[in-house]
């Protein structure tokens, strides 16, 4: 029964902490069900039992009952205090991270997640963590407030500019977990998603050693397509000609494009490269200068791959 309710209402339990949250959640489900049935049952019963039987019907003059009033003040009070302490007790776990936790820096910006590992490896919209090891996230934002939410871990924390907030978790289920932005942040809010990969010790170590070297054996254009997907380009740049926050990639390669200062420039290797690394340098007319820089976030081969990808969008 419990397992069934949980499977219907809640996502997978990706951490031990999730189990504790679900425990309280289930208790509250039962508690709510009890009180709802009490309210609905009594209402329904009274409506039927005491339905009006004639226009002249009289009713007894019952004004109050101290015992009942006290009972339905104190009993709910005791119950909600119990719920408060339970909620507080489980929450306390979340606020204190273990001292040996692996610390990962998280930077949120419109509309992508950037992760930095202690050894300097940086990734975008993709977080790899070791299975069964505590991980501590130190988070900040570069523009507006974002929200870091992993449903399967039952954790959430707003990411605030100019402030560091933190979260920690210890994943117990290998595989992919979804990360979502929960603090409204504008046009790309609902696409500000990332994937968390929980890998076993060895796989994680391998991944970290290669610096998350994706697409090592992939052809450049195919690798570029993958980067376009996971590095957040597609949030603003479409490939089908639809206007997004940024210009579409469709058919731009090799053609001149008009800039906001009235000049125009040829879309070639140099321009695309400059746009990735110094996005404010040349803005296409009609668009806002809102693209974040990817300097230090993309390796040379990745930039080349993206160029190949743009080139392929005829």
């Amino acid at each position, binding site marked *: 029964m419990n397992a069934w309710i949980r499977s219907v209402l809640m996502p997978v339990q990706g951490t031990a902490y999730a189990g504790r949250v679900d425990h*309280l959640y289930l208790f509250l489900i039962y508690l709510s069900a009890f009180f709802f049935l009490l309210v609905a049952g009594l209402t329904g019963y009274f*409506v039927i039992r005491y339905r009006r039987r004639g226009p002249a019907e009289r009713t007894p003059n019952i004004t109050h009952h101290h015992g009942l009033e006290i009972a339905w003040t104190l009993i709910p009070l005791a119950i909600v205090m119990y719920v*408060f302490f339970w909620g507080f007790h489980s929450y306390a776990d979340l606020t204190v991270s273990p001292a040996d936790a692996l610390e990962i820096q998280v930077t949120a910006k419109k509309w992508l997640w950037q992760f930095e590992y202690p050894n300097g490896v940086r990734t975008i919209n993709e977080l790899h963590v070791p299975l069964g090891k505590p991980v501590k996230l130190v988070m900040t934002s570069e523009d507006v407030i974002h929200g870091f939410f992993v449903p399967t871990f039952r954790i959430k924390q707003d990411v605030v500019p100019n402030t560091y907030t933190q979260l920690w978790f210890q994943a117990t289920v290998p595989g992919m977990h979804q990360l979502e932005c929960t603090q409204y942040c504008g046009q790309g809010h609902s696409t500000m998603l990332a994937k968390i990969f929980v890998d076993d010790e060895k796989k994680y170590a391998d991944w970290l050693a290669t610096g998350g070297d994706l697409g090592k054996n992939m052809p450049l254009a195919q690798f570029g397509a993958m980067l376009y997907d996971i590095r957040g380009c597609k949030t603003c740049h479409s490939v089908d000609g639809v206007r997004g926050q940024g210009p579409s990639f469709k058919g731009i390669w090799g053609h001149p494009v008009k800039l906001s200062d009235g000049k125009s420039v040829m879309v070639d290797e140099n321009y695309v490269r400059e746009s990735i690394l110094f996005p404010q340098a040349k803005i296409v007319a009609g668009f806002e200068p809102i693209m974040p820089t990817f300097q230090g976030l993309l390796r040379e081969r990745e930039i080349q791959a993206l160029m190949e990808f743009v080139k392929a969008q005829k």
Partner: protein
Amino acid sequence: MTDNYLSSPRGFKSWLTTVDHKRIGVMYLASILFAFLLGGIFAILIRIELLKPGHNIMSADTYNRVFTLHGAIMIFLFIIPSIPAALGNFVLPLMLGAKDVAFPRLNLASYYIYVAGALLAISAMVAGGVDTGWTFYTPYSTTTNGSVGLMTFAAFVLGFSSIFTGINFIATVHKLRAPGMGWFRMPLFVWGMYATAIIQVLATPVLGITLLLIIMERVFSVGIFNPQLGGDPILFQHFFWFYSHPAVYIMILPGMAIISEVIPCFSRKTIFGYKAIAYSSIAIAGVSFLVWGHHMFVSGQSSLANVIFSFLTFLVAIPSGVKVFNWIATMYKGSISLEAPMLYAISFLLLFAIGGLTGLFLGALATDVHLHDTYFVVAHFHFVMMGGTVMAFLAGLHFWWPKMFGRMYSEKWARVSAALIFIGFNVTFLSQFVLGSRGMPRRYYNYLDQFQPLHVFSTVGSWVLALGFLIMAGYLWASLRKPMDAPANPWGAVGLEWQTSSPPPEHNFETVPTVTGPPYDYSPVEPEPAEVHA
């Protein structure tokens, strides 16, 4: 007999310059119903957009503007003034046996300020729209494009309208009760309005200054809420919720107040635990000022504040629970008749119970962290605001409609519409509890495929809801087209407002009533009126 407040004095101008609380109430009613229609259209558009992931009928930018407008219109233009300014304005002086509210001109000013605020809000919609969400969180709201300044100014202006209504009601309750009407002889509706007015007066000014600070931040970059200039965006959330949490009680207390009138009337029985209900209204008003931080459990607020606010939040559950139990006890051994107002009151009981109980999930820290900013919250507050306040508003509207316009509506269609609204509401929003628990964040234009079936369910529910409201609009309009047929007291109710004719004369009572007994004294009620409309 024909000489009533609707017909005398005559002329359009006499309406625009009236200081009669009944006419102002009616003008408010028309305005808020229009706002409700507008907000409702936006709601339907949102649900259609969410029918499947990705682009359906609008772009992400448009979607963000639409949900902002839905929230802002429903809250500032509809729910907050709905019961106090429209229904309350009409019946509160009648219930007290007064000729008018204490400051009739201030009352009219409040209405015109409301209209001005509404026009500003509409011009903000037209001039670029606002995409901040109704919460205006900084630094998003201070950096985004669009007419945020105009919209915040509109909300600032609307705040004054709300404050003036509150001041008026407090002074009226203190100074204009009929001879013999002591504090504990007042109808519970008046107690609820009084508690509401306290919150309106004490909380709204803080919203005013908060909105002004947003405007200042946008125009001058004053820095207080701007993290990049050394300000604190979380402080903004404190400012905002210091008003906006009590505002939740500005919305629900009047709803509870109506239920306290309707249930005794249609159970034909004295209210159970009068004092407990009266005091719980005041208790809610008091505690409502201490719990705002539960909107900020994951905001980066200190853990200490989280714990304090979680604790205080649970305390506010108690007076609400007390009221629900007292209403149910009122029905015990009653003589219950299920006319439209009572149907809505029972809808209120069931839906508000769900709304209140799901509040426990959100008050408890551990579960809130998971559920915060998801559809669970969306469902929760729709159960409280719509399942609670709007159902109560509809109960009150149907209860006092004959009094206001002197005409009965079609009871048959009213029941059909009540049933559709109840079913449609549950289909729309119960599914959202599941969506939220499973991790669907709110304010999402796009979503993961796994959530689609529940979104479809919810959207279909919204159509049923819309149908219910269309039917209501139809029969209420039809009732206005026919000659006056309502008796003074169609429901056999006992308040002073039922002792004058329907609709009441210009100065409410032919002779000033004197109160000699307790309220809700249903024991000697004559059954005469029940046949009149049967």
